């Protein structure tokens, strides 16, 4: 965890927007899950219902807070700042969360089909390359691919030696391994 910098107006805008989205999602989810508890026996439903009430209240407060902040800021802040904040947030969402998350899910699919060690090699290779790409797209060259392949092989071999051979821990097996 790194130190956070003092919030800038753009951050405030982004935060207001994210609070609003978060509040709406929390409120809707808590209503959805609350409805799931209605068929449960009273004793089983009680504790989750308390929690879901709490979540719904937090959701409403988040929405309320975001709307209040929005009204305050709307007069002062530039529309440009809002747009910039949205672009920044979307950039993080897509490139720092969705792409690596998607790669992890692909690796999970491989885990189910071809086994843990080939899936690990795939994950190491792709994440290593993606990291280099995120720093500078020009990094993606033949030398990097070779380094990525070697690194993926070494890490996978190390894990196989330690977990499977040395400790005898079971790893998910698939068609290949």
């Amino acid at each position, binding site marked *: 965890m790194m130190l956070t910098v003092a919030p800038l107006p753009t951050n405030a805008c982004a935060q207001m927007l994210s609070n609003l989205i978060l509040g709406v999602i929390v409120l809707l989810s808590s209503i959805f899950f609350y409805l799931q508890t209605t068929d449960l026996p009273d004793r089983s439903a009680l504790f989750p219902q308390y929690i879901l009430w709490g979540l719904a209240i937090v959701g409403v407060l988040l929405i309320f807070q975001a709307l209040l902040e929005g009204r305050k800021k709307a007069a002062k802040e530039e529309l440009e700042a809002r747009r910039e904040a949205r672009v920044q947030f979307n950039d993080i969402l897509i490139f720092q969360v969705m792409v690596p998350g998607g790669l992890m899910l692909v690796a999970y699919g491989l885990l189910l089909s071809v086994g843990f060690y080939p899936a*690990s090699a795939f994950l190491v290779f792709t994440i290593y390359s993606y990291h280099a790409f995120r720093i500078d797209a020009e990094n993606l060259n033949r030398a990097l691919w070779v380094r990525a392949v070697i690194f993926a092989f070494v890490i996978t071999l190390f894990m196989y030696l330690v977990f499977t051979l040395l400790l005898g821990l079971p790893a998910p097996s698939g068609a290949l391994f």
Partner: protein
Amino acid sequence: MDIFSILLNLFTPSVFLVVFAGVLVGIVVGAIPGLNGAIGISLLLPLTFTMEPQIGLLLLGGIYMGGMYGGSITAILINVPGDVVAAPVAMEGYPLTQQGRAKEALYYSIFSSMFGGFIGVLVLILFTPPLARFALQFGPAEMFFVSLSGLIIVGALSGSILKAALAVLLGLFISTVGVDMITGSERFTFDSLGLRSGISVVPVVLGLFCFAEMFLNIGKKPSEQVQYRDQKISRMTVIKDILSQRFLVWKSGLIGTVVGLLPGVGTTLAVFMSYGDAKRASRRDIPFEQGNPDGIIAAESANNATVGSSMVPLLALGVPGSPTSAIIAGALVIHGIVLGPSLFVNRPDVAFTFLYGMLLTVVAMTIIGAIGIKYFSYILKIKMEYIVPTVLVFALFGAYSLRNSLFDVFIAIILGIAGAIFKKMHVPLAPIIIGVVLGPLIETNLARAMRIAGARNMPLWEYLLATPLSKGLVALVVIMLLVVIRMRHKEKIAAKEVKNA
């Protein structure tokens, strides 16, 4: 269990090896920006499955202790505090590095960590068994209030209190997924076989701490290279100087210990309080923020003192005092060990070996820290492009190996994605873990209390407050909450001063 048997358990080559390895791993992960002790513990969890519980526990304790110290290395050498906790050390340590006195700053850091670590572990040894004996008298009402005390984390965290509340409620909600142990009915399983057995703490930790953290580290450029030109200084000179400030060491160590004892409060508060106090009381001519060793002594003593004391509520009451101790709690569950007062009755071997073994972790940290200083700059050369994929695949294996369940891997990945989004939305992740761990404890004791109250034909609240002990515990929880809010206010002021400087 007598002291001789404990020593016999402790002084074996395997214990020494495990403790030193744990501390070394802790220092390394603590020193790498983007990693921390909690991630180190999560990654090495699978290794502990094949060990004796007490040895596995000491490995994790070693990582915890080493990780606390490791964070100060980057803070001193390159002015990058790996965690907010290390910010005061960076304020004083980095100016010393710029003056060519990095070694001296690192010596101050390690030896202050040693003194603080010892104070915390002594409190752990002295307070845990009596507290556990006392807690044996607790009924469902008292245990309900004790587990509620862990939720004080909501008041303790800096940032939005609404988001901290959201996080802790989310953790509690996650803990309700699966088959209800009391009635046997399924909750929020949507007919999924994987969800029936519930969501255990380890995939949650791996998802929120490892995956989320690593996703956000992708694309980070390498750290600044260390300029390591150094003036000679002996270890004894630094130790003598620290001992001449023994009042400061004791005071900071005790602040760390007391704050660490409060469940869920965390280290940041202790460090900023001690640093702020040292700043007010220092008698040295050197101004603060320009390399005053008192700042390092105070912050590091408090920092490491929290390690031992944060384990007291975990071992004695089953309530984790920090996210890291929540992970350790998860590791013990894997070994079939129930935390709380009964631990000292049912598994005294595990409990006492761990308590006294934590002293060894302080010794190991001191030896590694004092000897390894010249090698620390190498840790900073490890590139993020190697760290991120390695941590991800190790975490993937860790998520699977807990219950040999692919569903756990899926849960960890989904929570990793959610965790990264939460981080960007400034929702703290630690309370989610605390909520997951405390959820079953709160629910079980609430259900028991309701059953007893029903059988006695009395309202629930009347039963909950029936004994002087439970009334006292309610008062204690309220007082703790008020103290924490007050401390948080003080921390904010101290942090503001640091930021302004």
